């Protein structure tokens, strides 16, 4: 805690000195016990009995009022508070609670009056009244007076020898607010919350406040701990449930909506929860629902800035400029300098991928309040998303200076500090940022693939994104994660903000975990679909299109059908189109994300197959015009979403009829993977007992294979394959069968299996290499070269692959191919670099590029001046250039 808190005074603040009288001990314990079990009804009953028994017991009445308010019985709470006041006209004890209820209903003038009276009357909760009053003033833009009020709480803290838990929580809130002027006070807020909790571990409000503070600073770990501890004290506390919902939501973990629902079940009128629900609706791109939720809050509290923000955002996203303007003016009428309105709009825009709008809103926030560190942070992050790196850094630096405790901002600045280690290369349409240690290797492949994608997609979509598109490739997944969501731990492989995209480098993950080429193609496709629609394309549609474009780009690229997908289809668990966004934004579990990607790609594929690609482009245009999915489908496809779903699911069932019949419910399934390798006998028995069970066949085959019984495994693999030919998982029967056939000398069968495998799997590295080997043995040099090219998009780091590629290119007379492979070998920084440079020089010379050949052979000889073959090449090059003039 800072020095200003260390100066503890001896005198009690007069405000805090006047007690409210004890709640009757036994009954208070009963009420507390009921609250600990989350039984609000029981607690209220106990408190009502106590209040009735003793009409002058202020503490009991206050607890009753607060408990009633906590479950949303605001009218009852108000009535109870007023009844107490009527019975005890000289007592100030219920005025703070009354003020809080009134403020929550937007009756700010009455609330202010109540708070002032509580303070003037020396109520025992006058410090809470002081912080509430200051918050009211801040909300209406009276910043100076508000800050003076918050400072009075610090004075109270310093002058009091001890404060109650509730008073300490009020001090914490004041420090939190004052942190805007002096970030050290955020630490004091933390300390005061901790002291408040220490003074009364059952003070759930203090724990919720602590969780909220951590959440604001993107410290999710501590936020989760505080929320959990709050729920341990009261599992039904609406604020604690909401805090946990927010933590889960921020983590992308399942269960956030369930927590939110529980919070609203306890208090259906809980304003922050309702606003959060409105935000959820906005994330789901369900703007009408967001409007409804916002208006519901505003009906209770017309002065709710958060609700006005979500309403304004919904109107804006709907393209309702007039509605947006009315709402905006309404918010500014409450506080003409409400930077937070624009901060919220900026944040909500960014969550809806409207990064340019987010930056604009944040800019407006900063214009209203140059000390809005949050606004500066949001501005900086969105400038970075738009590719304005230097302005973004400056905004973030300014934000960090004012608030150094925002983890997202700090992490992003740390990441920016590493940018000097990256090298930037340019191609016609791309600006590519690669880490220095792998730039030389990856740049040619990245440029070539990116330009190929650009050419294909621009021709197909009839659209050319304004360039250059910035591609950032991160060798450390944590850095990619920070670039995308500010924190480590994002599960994705790539992210696209429109003009800027970021992906994991192939070195960021183990070989076989992903295909970096298809990932790049996927993200570039987003650049097109986001650009065409002004970023207004729904998440499911842009993802579906990107996966679909992967499928079209190269054999095997893009998500494949999985057992989990078929199982979800069978169980009727695939999301209807209207809800498909949820599968990406708030999935029930990690599996649902992968399922949703594939499902979305199938939707797009089906639309294209049924209505042609122009229908897809027309849908994009409709989204760009601000149409909802329902409207776009009606206009472009002439169908309702319900009818579309019916037809779509019907064709899916037809298309996957085989796998659907071969997949058993999850609870009856055989575990695939290493676990399946342990007991071949049992697995064989299971496979024999149900010859139509794909997973049982595959598990038996795998177990036998790994037990060395390769011949015996064949029938199981073959049966598995016939049951589910499209299965391309790691345990694909194709690879096993290829290995067995190869051992048996059945080369053409092995070749067929590997071709089928690589046609449906984009990251089977060993499969691609083995295929290349067999194709070369068969004399199909071009095919072998193609396989190796595809292998490089899984992992480009193996020198032997490039050596082989160079040899194949030489045999094919593909001089450019030799040069490319030789360049890769040099870029791999071999120990014998002179040899690699010499080989590259030789390839360049043979390709007719004498100038480049000269440069490379000089590099070789610079390291190894006596390298005889390089000397000979240099002499040849030199003499052909000068005619031996320098002899």
């Amino acid at each position, binding site marked *: 805690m800072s020095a200003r808190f260390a100066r503890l005074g001896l005198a009690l603040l007069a405000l805090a000195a006047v007690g409210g009288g004890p709640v009757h001990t036994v009954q208070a314990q009963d009420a507390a016990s009921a609250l600990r079990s989350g039984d609000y009804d029981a607690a209220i009953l106990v408190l009502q009995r106590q209040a009735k028994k003793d009409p002058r017991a202020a503490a009991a009445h206050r607890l009753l009022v607060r408990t009633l308010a906590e479950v949303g019985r605001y009218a009852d709470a108000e009535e109870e508070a007023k009844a107490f006041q009527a019975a005890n006209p000289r007592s100030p004890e219920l005025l703070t609670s009354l003020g809080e209820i009134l403020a929550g209903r937007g009756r700010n003038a009455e609330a202010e009056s109540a708070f002032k009276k509580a303070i003037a009357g020396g109520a025992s909760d006058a410090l809470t009244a002081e912080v509430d009053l200051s918050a009211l003033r801040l909300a209406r833009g009276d910043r100076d007076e508000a800050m003076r009020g918050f400072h009075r709480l610090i004075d109270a803290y310093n002058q009091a020898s001890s404060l109650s838990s509730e008073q300490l929580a009020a001090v914490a809130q004041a420090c939190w607010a004052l942190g805007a002027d002096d970030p050290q006070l955020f630490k004091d807020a933390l300390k005061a919350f901790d002291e408040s909790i220490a003074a009364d571990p059952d003070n759930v409000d203090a724990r919720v406040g602590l969780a909220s503070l951590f959440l604001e600073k993107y410290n999710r770990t501590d936020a989760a701990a505080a929320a959990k501890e709050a729920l341990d004290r009261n599992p039904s506390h609406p604020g604690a449930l909401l805090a946990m919902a927010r933590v889960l939501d921020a983590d992308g973990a399942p269960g956030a909506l369930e927590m939110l629902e529980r919070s609203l079940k306890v208090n259906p009128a809980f304003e922050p929860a309702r606003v959060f629900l409105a935000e959820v609706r906005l994330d789901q791109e369900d703007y009408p629902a967001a409007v409804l939720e916002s208006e519901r809050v505003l009906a209770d509290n017309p002065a709710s800035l958060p609700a006005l923000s979500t309403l304004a955002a919904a109107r804006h996203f709907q393209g309702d400029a007039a509605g947006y303007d009315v709402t905006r003016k309404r918010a500014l009428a409450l506080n003409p300098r409400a930077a937070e309105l624009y901060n919220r709009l900026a944040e909500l825009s960014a969550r809806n991928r409207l990064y340019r709008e987010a930056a604009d809103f944040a800019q407006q926030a900063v214009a209203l309040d140059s000390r809005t560190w949050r606004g500066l942070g949001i501005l900086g992050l969105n400038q970075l998303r738009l590719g304005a790196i230097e302005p973004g850094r400056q905004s973030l630096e300014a934000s960090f200076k004012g608030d150094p405790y925002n983890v997202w901002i700090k992490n992003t600045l740390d990441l920016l500090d590493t940018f000097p280690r990256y090298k930037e290369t340019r191609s016609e349409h791309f600006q590519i940022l690669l880490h220095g240690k792998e730039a030389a290797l990856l740049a040619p492949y990245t440029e070539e693939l990116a330009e190929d994608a650009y050419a294909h997609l621009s021709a197909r979509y009839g659209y050319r994104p304004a360039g250059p598109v910035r591609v950032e490739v991160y060798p450390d997944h944590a850095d990619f994660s920070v670039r995308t969501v500010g924190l480590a731990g994002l599960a994705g492989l790539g992210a696209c903000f429109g003009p800027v995209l970021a992906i994991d480098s192939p070195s960021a993950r183990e070989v076989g975990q992903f295909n970096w080429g298809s990932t790049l193609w996927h993200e570039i496709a987003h650049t097109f679909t986001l650009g065409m629609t002004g970023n207004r394309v729904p998440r499911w549609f842009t993802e579906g299109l990107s996966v679909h474009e992967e499928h079209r780009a190269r054999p095997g690229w893009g998500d494949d059908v999985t057992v989990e997908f078929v199982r979800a289809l069978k169980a009727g668990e695939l999301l209807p189109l209207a809800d498909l966004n949820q599968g990406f934004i708030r999935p029930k579990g990690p599996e649902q994300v992968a399922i949703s990607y594939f499902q979305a790609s199938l939707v797009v594929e089906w639309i294209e197959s049924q209505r042609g690609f122009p229908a897809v482009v027309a849908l994009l245009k409709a989204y760009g015009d601000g149409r909802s999915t329902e409207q776009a489908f009606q206009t472009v496809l002439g169908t309702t979403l319900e009818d579309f779903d019916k037809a779509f699911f019907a064709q899916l069932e037809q298309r996957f009829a085989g796998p659907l019949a071969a997949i058993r419910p999850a609870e009856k399934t055989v575990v695939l993977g290493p676990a399946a390798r342990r007991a071949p006998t049992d697995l064989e028995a299971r496979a024999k007992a149900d010859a139509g069970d794909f997973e049982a066949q595959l598990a038996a085959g795998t177990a036998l294979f790994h037990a060395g019984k390769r011949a015996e495994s064949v029938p199981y693999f073959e049966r598995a394959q016939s049951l589910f030919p499209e299965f391309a998982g790691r345990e694909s029967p194709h690879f096993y069968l290829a290995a067995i056939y190869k051992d048996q000398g059945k080369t053409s069968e092995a070749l067929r299996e590997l071709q089928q495998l690589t046609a449906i799997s984009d990251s089977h590295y060993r499969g691609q290499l083995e295929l290349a080997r067999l194709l070369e043995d068969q004399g199909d040099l071009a095919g072998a070269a193609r396989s190796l090219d595809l292998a490089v998009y899984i992992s480009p780091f193996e020198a032997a692959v490039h050596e082989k590629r160079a040899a194949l290119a030489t045999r094919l007379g593909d001089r450019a191919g030799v040069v490319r492979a030789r360049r890769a070998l040099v870029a791999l920084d071999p120990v014998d670099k002179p040899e690699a440079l010499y080989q590259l020089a030789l390839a360049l010379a043979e390709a007719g590029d004498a100038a480049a050949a000269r440069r490379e052979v*000089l590099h070789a000889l610079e390291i190894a001046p006596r390298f005889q073959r390089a000397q000979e090449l240099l002499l040849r090059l030199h003499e052909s250039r000068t005619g031996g003039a320098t002899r």
Partner: protein
Amino acid sequence: MSGILRRALLCIVALSASWARPVAADESHLVIVVGLGGEPKYTEAFHELAVRMIQAAEKKMGVAAANIAYLGEKATYPALPVYKGRASREAVQKVLGEIAQTAGPGDLVFVLLIGHGGSQAGESRFNLPGPDMTAADFAPLLAALGRQEVVFVNTASASGDFVKALSAKGRTIVTATKSAMERNQTEFPSYFVQAFSEDGADADKDQRVSVLEAFTYARREVERFYEKGHLLATEHAVLDDNGDGTGSSVPDPATGDGAMARRVFLGGGESTADGAAASADPRVAELRRQRRAIEEKIGALKARKDAMESAQYEDELEKLLVELARREAALRQKEGGR
């Protein structure tokens, strides 16, 4: 460029002018000490490395069998004439003591430890059958080799502290780890031996592998090993040859460690490598002298590289390299072709 940087550059130029002069080692002595394996797989792997190193020394680098001593876990290895018995502390002391008595001034004594290491009571140890040996145990043995060129390579885990204890002028110390805290089994020895036994470590293509080249090769291959496996590196090899007691993971002969290791070759390499060796044929001697002069010019040019326009640098480099290539071609012709 600032004035300070310009001055720094001039210093580098001056240093680089002393172009690599190989140490004129008359004879090379190789002592391989394989410690306790602990498990059969290690015992076997360590022995295999020792054998590969011996084969490379004899066949590739021309070290006389009489100058090779191998001490290992077993009492005898009848198939290996250079095997001198169990690697007890006494045996190590005896072998090194004998070399100190018999080696000529300027001879190279190359000591290679393969096995497990550890640390006890703040002291790094190399595990042997019987009592372990600490760096302090080796210190007097190396001190007795004051007239010889010494290369001491401890490839064991936790070997890093040997640098400080054994560092001295005229000695090259290599350890597989940077400190005694790196205690995991090391990958370094297999790549270090590979540098001598296989092709690929001769970075300057002079047909020889210097100690610096072997170290650099092994260090980089170890890095690749950990990177490829997505593992956190648990070993960081260092080399010290300037006697300051601090090893460098990336030696820079121009400014710190590496200047000596760059010139030390097990077996001495080709006798005429430095161009200074005499020849009965005065034309050959003259060509060698010219070659040497050109190489010195190349070295000086490289030192100026950062201060030059790249096109100008390339032109000048090309001119010198073409001259060198022509002298080399002429030499090859005179020497009957190599």
